[in-house]
Every structure is written in C-alpha cells, then in structure tokens.
C-alpha cells in the first residue's frame, strides 16, 4: 500500500469506523447488552424514566384539578354577579357547566394514567431488586410483564 493512502481509502476507512461505532452504541442500548454488561446505568435509566413519568402524570392530573377549581369558582362568581363576562364572550353558565363535565371526563383518564405510571416505576424498582437480567436465549413463554 502506498504511504499517503488514496483519498478514497481514507474515506472508506472513516466510514467503516463510524459504522462500527454506531453498531457498538446501538448494541449497548439493547436490554440484552445493557442489563448484562452495565446493569447499574441500565436500572438507573429505567428508574429515572419511571420517576419522571410518574411526576409528569401527577402534574397533568393537577393541572386538570386546578382547571376544575378555576371553572367552578368562575361559575359561582357568575351566579353571584361578581364575575360578568364581556358581551360576546364564550363564557356563560351553560359553557361553564359543560366545561366542568369535560374536565371530569379528562380527569378520569388522567387519574388512570397516573396509576399506570406508578405501576411502571414500581416495576422498574422490582426488576432491579430482583437483579433481573435480560435472557440471551429465546425465553419460554411467561406471563406478560412478569420479571
């Protein structure tokens, strides 16, 4: 091989290195590799994700509860005359009553989301406590989500 290698050779070599790096990084992201080779960072990531999701879902329920209170107080003040909507406003007794119902429906789902997020976090903690590792062989059928 010539000493100053041809430009094509250099580019080819760099591409190969980049491809190898991508393959390595992708491989280390799979649960098979991460849970067996770097279990600490794997479970840190899993628990951190669960914690952030649970906090987010709690916040989403809170904003709906705060909206509910804001709408109810507005309805109260509309009835007592403390709040007077501008002419042509979308706010009226009917739209406020409807808003309360809509918020209740959305909140029912948000409460369920919150419960599922808590379950997800608990599952991550349970897997870590059990020292779970992703099996490398095809696993026998077991209950869904069973560690």
């Amino acid at each position, binding site marked *: 091989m010539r000493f100053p290698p041809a430009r094509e050779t250099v580019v080819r070599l760099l591409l190969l290195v980049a491809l190898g790096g991508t393959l390595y990084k992708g491989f280390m992201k799979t649960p098979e590799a991460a849970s067996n080779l770097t279990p600490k960072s794997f479970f840190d990531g899993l628990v951190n994700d669960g914690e952030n999701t649970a*906090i987010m879902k709690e*916040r989403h329920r*809170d904003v709906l509860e705060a909206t509910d209170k804001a709408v109810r107080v507005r309805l109260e003040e509309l009835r007592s005359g403390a709040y007077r909507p501008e002419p042509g406003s979308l706010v009226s007794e009917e739209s406020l009553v409807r*808003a309360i119902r809509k918020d209740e429906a959305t909140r029912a789902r948000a409460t369920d989301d919150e419960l599922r997020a808590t379950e997800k976090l608990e599952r991550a903690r349970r897997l870590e406590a059990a020292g779970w590792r992703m099996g490398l062989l095809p696993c026998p059928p077991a209950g869904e989500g069973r560690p």
Partner: protein
Amino acid sequence: MSLSRRFLRLFSLALLAVLLAGVAGLVWFGAWHYPALGLAGIPKDGYRRAMDIAARGMTATDGLVFEDFDFLKYREVARGGEAYAWGAARCKAADGSTTFYWVYLEWSKKRGQWLRNYSLELAAPDDEIYFTRQNPGQFGRARLAAGKLLGQLASRVREALAARPVAGNRPDLQSPGL
C-alpha cells in the same frame, strides 16, 4: 437591467437576514432569556422563592393581583437530577373576580437554575374548554388561537421589559403569606 437585478438580490438577501434575525430573536427570548428571568442564583430547594417571583411577575403583567398559592408542589427524582415545581396562584382580576394562574417551573441541570415552563391563566375566556362544535367557527378558532399565542408573547415581553429597571435593586423578593 443588471443594476435592478443586483438591487433585487441585495434586497431579498436583506429580507432573509431580517427574517432569520427575527426567528433567532424569538428562539433566544422564548427558550433562553425569558425562562431564566430573575431566577438565577436560587438553589433547587429555594423553589418557593422561585415560584413566588415567577407567579408575581407573570400575573402582574396580565393585570392580576397575586394573592397566594392555592397549592404548591415540589417533586424531584431520586436518581438523576431533575426537579419540578408547580402550583396554582389565586389572583384578583381588575373587575374583582377570582382568577387562577398555573405556574410551572423546571430545574435545569445544564444551567443550574430554575426555569419557567408552560404557565398560563386557567379557564381564561379564550380557553378551548368553552368551545362547542359550532361555536366558535373555523375562523373564530384560528383567531382565538393566534390571539392567545401573540397575547402571551406580548405579556412575556412586557414582563421582561418591566423586570429590566428593577434588576439592580430587587425590591420585593420576600414572600409574605408563604
């Protein structure tokens, strides 16, 4: 002919530059400058002070008088450094009616300070929660959405401008009622 063409080219380049500068300015203001405004140096567990500053600033520019937090929450993860603070601020509007304002801050690991996040007046008269299928119509919806976005931007800009002169002496950092 060549002169007018050169002029046209220059003009369109200048227009593009102005447009890009405008977009860059918006991104800088919305993603960097405004969220951090007046919150630098407050530690993670100083979230009450950060929430107080944020709530007073954003409600005052909307003509609301901040009374107290209806509720205030702080959450942090045990692993990783994320932390969040949120709450509903109870305010009085100019006409004497009660208004609730949602205030939400996130701790930025990168910048090491609290940052304002999605915050707005709850159940405002232009809220989607009052919409039906027919009312408002297509154009009404678009007008309300654009008005909400631009109105919020305008009030953020007003808040940033109002914060400028008092940045030196910071008169009301104490938080009565908290």
